[in-house]
């Protein structure tokens, strides 16, 4: 059985790498990863940049480097030219016994206040260790925007996996090859599993690619695989149903796009709506998948939580399967 599943998967892979649309879907996760990296700040980036005079006060430079990105220049004129550049950078320039801040005028108030504060703390000789405040971390180690984008991208890729399955099934329908498969000793279960491998592997490969490209190396890989596998089940089911009920690639791809609605609904519910609205989205498998993936990316999810969310997604997929199974079976006859 495993050999036949592998054979069916290899056939699909061979066809997919020759087909432009399928190939585009296959490399989409890498594009996602690169784009997210380009358009969102890095995990440890700071948004405050300061320009200082080289050699004027080495101690000050060392102190400020702890809290901001520092650029040094040989003269005040050079600092002035730099400040006038397109991005936000604030010059700290000596005058008599003190310093003045040189700004372009369009920097945000928070950035200017932060620069003022840093300069004030240095002049008052106050360090971070001088505070009496106790540090309690909530476990957030990555920027929320980046985490959300990665989370949505992973769920999006699971839908692409379903789309790939649908495309491969449509090919079987167009070429009328299902009847030929049905007169071989390959069982329907083997055929379905073989056809599903491509969609599931794309989801796993895509998730791995995004995580590696963006740098979420510290997450619990097993938890991620678990939640991705159960999420991709839904896409596999919808991929099959669209594949066996559509006779051309465009209409199949169009029908699969309907899956983006529950995905967006689940994401928006968690990110925007208050607690009282949350139960309205409990039916949505993507809601739970997004919740679980968010915890994994934050490195804050316990196994109990992840297993619970995966279980809920599994049950919801089971319900979808119960509804769709007769149509899938009929379509494969």
């Amino acid at each position, binding site marked *: 059985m495993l050999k036949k599943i592998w*054979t069916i998967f290899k056939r699909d892979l061979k*066809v997919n790498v020759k087909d432009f649309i399928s190939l585009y879907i296959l490399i989409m996760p890498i594009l996602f990863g690169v784009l997210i990296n380009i358009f969102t700040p890095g995990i440890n980036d700071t948004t405050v940049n300061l320009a200082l005079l080289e050699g004027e006060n080495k101690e000050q430079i060392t102190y400020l480097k702890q809290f901001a990105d520092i650029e040094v220049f040989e003269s005040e004129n050079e600092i002035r030219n730099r400040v006038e550049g397109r991005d936000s950078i604030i010059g700290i320039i000596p005058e008599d016994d003190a310093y003045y801040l040189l700004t372009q005028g369009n920097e945000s108030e928070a950035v200017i206040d932060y620069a003022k504060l840093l300069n004030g703390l240095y002049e008052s000789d106050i360090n971070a260790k001088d505070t009496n405040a106790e540090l309690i971390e909530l476990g957030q180690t990555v920027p929320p925007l980046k985490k959300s984008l990665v989370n949505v991208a992973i769920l999006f890729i699971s839908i692409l996996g379903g789309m790939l399955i649908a495309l491969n099934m449509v090919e079987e329908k167009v*070429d009328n*090859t299902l009847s*030929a498969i049905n*007169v071989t000793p*390959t069982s329907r279960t083997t055929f379905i599993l073989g056809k599903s491998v491509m969609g599931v592997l794309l989801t796993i490969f895509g998730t791995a690619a995004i995580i590696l490209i963006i740098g979420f190396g510290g997450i619990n890989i097993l938890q991620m695989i678990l939640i991705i596998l159960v999420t991709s089940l839904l896409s596999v089911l919808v991929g099959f149903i669209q594949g066996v009920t559509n006779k051309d690639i465009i209409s199949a791809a169009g029908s699969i796009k309907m899956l983006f609605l529950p995905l967006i609904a689940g994401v928006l519910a968690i990110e925007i709506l208050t607690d009282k609205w949350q139960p309205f989205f409990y039916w949505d498998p993507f809601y739970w998948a997004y919740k679980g993936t968010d915890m994994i990316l934050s490195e804050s999810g316990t196994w109990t939580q992840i297993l619970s969310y995966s279980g809920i997604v599994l049950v919801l997929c089971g319900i979808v399967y119960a509804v769709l199974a007769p149509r899938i079976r009929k379509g494969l006859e």
Partner: protein
Amino acid sequence: MIKVKNLSHSYNKDEKYQVKNINFEVKKGEIFGFLGPSGAGKSTVQNILTGLLQLQEGEAVVADYDIKNISKEMFNKIGMSFEQSNVYSKLTAKENLDFYSKLFDVKTVDSNELLNLVGLEGKENVKAGEFSKGMKHRLTFARSMINEPELWFLDEPTTGLDPSIAADIKEIIKTKNNDGVTIFLTTHNMFIADELCDRVAFIVDGEIKLIDSPENLKLQYGEQLVEVEYIENNETKIKTFSTVFPEDKKALQTVIDQHEIKTMHTKEATLEEIFIKVTGRGLV
């Protein structure tokens, strides 16, 4: 090899049967022709026997497997060549055959050997989508032999093929039959049935009207006639004589003795004429 008893099937699962009360047997090593016009129910019966349609009523045993509880193992023993070509257009001819060969649990025939057999040598690495209709049909036909079936279902195996390729296909069928392969041939082409089949079944409106060998049918339903073209008084004349009635036999002898014969041939009834005579229906 095949036993069918009281088989009936309705697509809408109601009383309007597409095939009803079908009974026949196919012996091992036989070429059995299932003949009838389009829509007669030939493909329905064949699809039930190959598991493509579920058995609703009656009994059927194919290659010692009960079709009611069909086992996938049965497909290691049977081959099926479809009327409509169904190959992966994005794969090459060889990739198509290699893929199918891996879906069987028995020893399979080398893809190149099969491609050569059906005249597709040199086309191994051409995508099936670029093939002509006839080439796709040959590829579909070649695929049905990949597991060296004991029982071979052939649905219109020569339809759409040019005469020389059709002749090659018929030769392959004869050779396989000589090797002991049982063949279930579904066709509306009476000439191929006449040439290949040991026995034929006439099916019309979902019912089998008759089963017998082509020879017996001709003896039973055809008239024994001889058509003679001869010269009499510098004129070419054509006359038909019965080989059964004594006066016709005598007249024929006289013509042979007294005139120059240009042509002379027996005029036995064709299978198509017998089909029309028995069923009252044409084959279109």
